[in-house]
């Protein structure tokens, strides 16, 4: 592994210095709803960790959990900090009953998200999904995933320029997940629209017209998935839809998922991994294009499996795609010195946990040698820890490896100040990332 004892390291300081901040001034009147803070949130996170680790953001109406240590407390108690209540609070917005009626009329049924639940129900559902996602199973899939990704890179290598989001990260992710699910002949543009329609249900930002339009897309999605599931009921194949349709509890009691649960899970698998993994791939390209020393180090270590795994983990630590996800308290509870009343909405700021210098010294430095890099929380933690994490890591690893093998001179074709982000508290996602490059010749 390459040494990262880079020259020019200030003794006792961090090579990447973000300057001393007046935390009080950063916090005063600020909100995570502010697009400028959403785009560049780290000073806000640092101010919260220092001054108000569990901070009530009035404009957002949520308690923000910013310290690594407090996030671990949330992970350890999924009953007090409820995913299910938080999800119900946000889902469908003001037009919930109408949305549900549309689903029942045109979409094959209304299928509540079985995975957005609390133990003990969640434990049962999750167990039935898990076997499809183990690290060993994903390892077997590596050659097929690698082929999808290398075909994509080959397809753009001679073009010289591309939008890393539209031409690269989004289609790669959709191809991989459709391949895993066993959806051949899918229409990538449609999957992308479905994905946006499902995500819009929890953004609480849609007006009535948008709800009706999104509902139509979701009906289309459900009808498509239900047909593929029916095909596999009698004729199972080697794919994830078959795994979910035929999942049986390993406890020998033969327990299975209901059809409604199975539809919601296939839908979740298709959607949950798309934006997140695509964002991770975009972030990969951003880092390679803006930090040449890291790109060079990756190039030199591209055949070292241990280096690659650490590289991926550190990428997810430094630039976590999911910045925060919600919970609702089911009782009065004290966290990080703040008393949170029952039925309050909270946002777990995973991005702030990954930026906490008490756990990750010099958190803005990209350092693959961090001894505790596996403690990063880009995938959350506790019983809701991302189920697709092994697949996501594999996709990012293969993309990093094949990209530096095939492309050179990766450069941004946009000024950093001009990069815009989706207006979302849940993810930090670049809207476009124009790049230029050459095909690597040596």
């Amino acid at each position, binding site marked *: 592994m390459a040494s990262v004892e880079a020259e020019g390291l200030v003794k006792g300081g961090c090579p990447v210095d973000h300057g001393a901040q007046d935390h009080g001034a950063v916090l005063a009147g600020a909100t995570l709803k502010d697009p400028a803070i959403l785009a560049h949130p780290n000073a806000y996170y640092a101010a919260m960790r220092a001054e108000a680790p569990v901070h009530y953001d009035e404009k957002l109406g949520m308690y923000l959990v910013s310290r690594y240590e407090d996030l671990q407390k949330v992970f350890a108690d999924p009953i007090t900090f409820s995913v299910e209540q938080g999800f119900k609070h946000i889902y469908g917005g003001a037009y919930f009953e109408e949305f549900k009626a549309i689903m029942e009329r045109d979409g094959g049924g209304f299928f509540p998200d079985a995975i957005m639940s609390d133990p003990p129900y969640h434990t049962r559902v999750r167990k039935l999904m*898990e076997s499809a996602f183990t690290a060993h199973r994903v390892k077997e899939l590596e050659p097929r995933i690698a082929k999808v990704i290398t075909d994509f890179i080959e397809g753009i290598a001679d073009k010289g320029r591309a939008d890393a989001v539209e031409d690269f990260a989004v289609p790669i992710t959709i191809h991989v997940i459709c391949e895993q699910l066993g959806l051949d002949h899918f229409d990538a543009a449609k999957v992308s629209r479905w994905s946006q329609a499902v995500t819009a249900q929890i953004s609480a930002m849609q007006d009535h017209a948008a709800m009706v339009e999104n509902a139509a897309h979701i009906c289309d999605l459900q009808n498509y998935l239900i047909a593929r599931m029916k095909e596999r009921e009698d004729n199972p194949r080697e794919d994830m839809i078959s795994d979910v349709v035929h999942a049986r509890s390993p406890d020998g009691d033969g327990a299975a998922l209901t059809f409604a649960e199975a539809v919601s899970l296939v839908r979740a698998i298709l959607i949950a991994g798309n934006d997140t993994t695509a964002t991770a791939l975009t972030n990969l390209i951003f880092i390679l294009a803006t930090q040449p020393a890291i790109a060079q180090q990756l190039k030199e270590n591209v055949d070292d499996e241990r280096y690659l795994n650490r590289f991926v983990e550190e990428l997810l630590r430094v630039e976590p795609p999911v910045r925060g996800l919600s919970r609702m308290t089911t009782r009065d509870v004290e966290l990080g010195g703040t008393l949170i009343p029952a039925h309050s909405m909270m946002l777990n700021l995973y991005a702030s946990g990954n930026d906490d210098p008490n756990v990750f010294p010099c958190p803005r430095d990209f350092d693959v040698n961090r001894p505790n890099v596996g403690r990063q929380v880009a995938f959350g933690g506790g019983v809701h820890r991302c189920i697709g994490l*092994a697949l996501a890591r594999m996709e990012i690893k293969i993309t990093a490896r094949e990209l530096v093998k095939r492309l050179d001179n990766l450069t941004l074709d946009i000024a950093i100040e001009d990069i815009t982000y989706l207006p979302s508290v849940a993810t930090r996602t670049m809207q476009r990332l124009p790049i230029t490059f050459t095909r690597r010749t040596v």
Partner: protein
Amino acid sequence: MAALTVTFIETDGTERAIDNVDAGPSLMEVARNSGIAGIMGDCGGACSCATCHVYIDESWLERVGAPDDIEYMMLDMVADVQRDNSRLSCQIRMREELDGLRLTVAPLPGY
């Protein structure tokens, strides 16, 4: 089925002997079912989270065996607490040969 015994030593030194363990389940599942402190098993045994990390008692190392490559890579992510006798307990199935096994729970930050 044979009733086997496993002893977990929690991070504060508490010894917890678990009797009547069946052959078959992983040691992570055994620990979770018995509420052993410090074994979270977040990923459900997918070898993807390292929240089921244990140190195998030296005298048992040979019988338990070494981690495979995938498990080793995951242990490397928590190199701060990794030792030569580190294993992920979700990757070890209980079997008769392991009757009497002793292991120590590795520290988790923050829990």
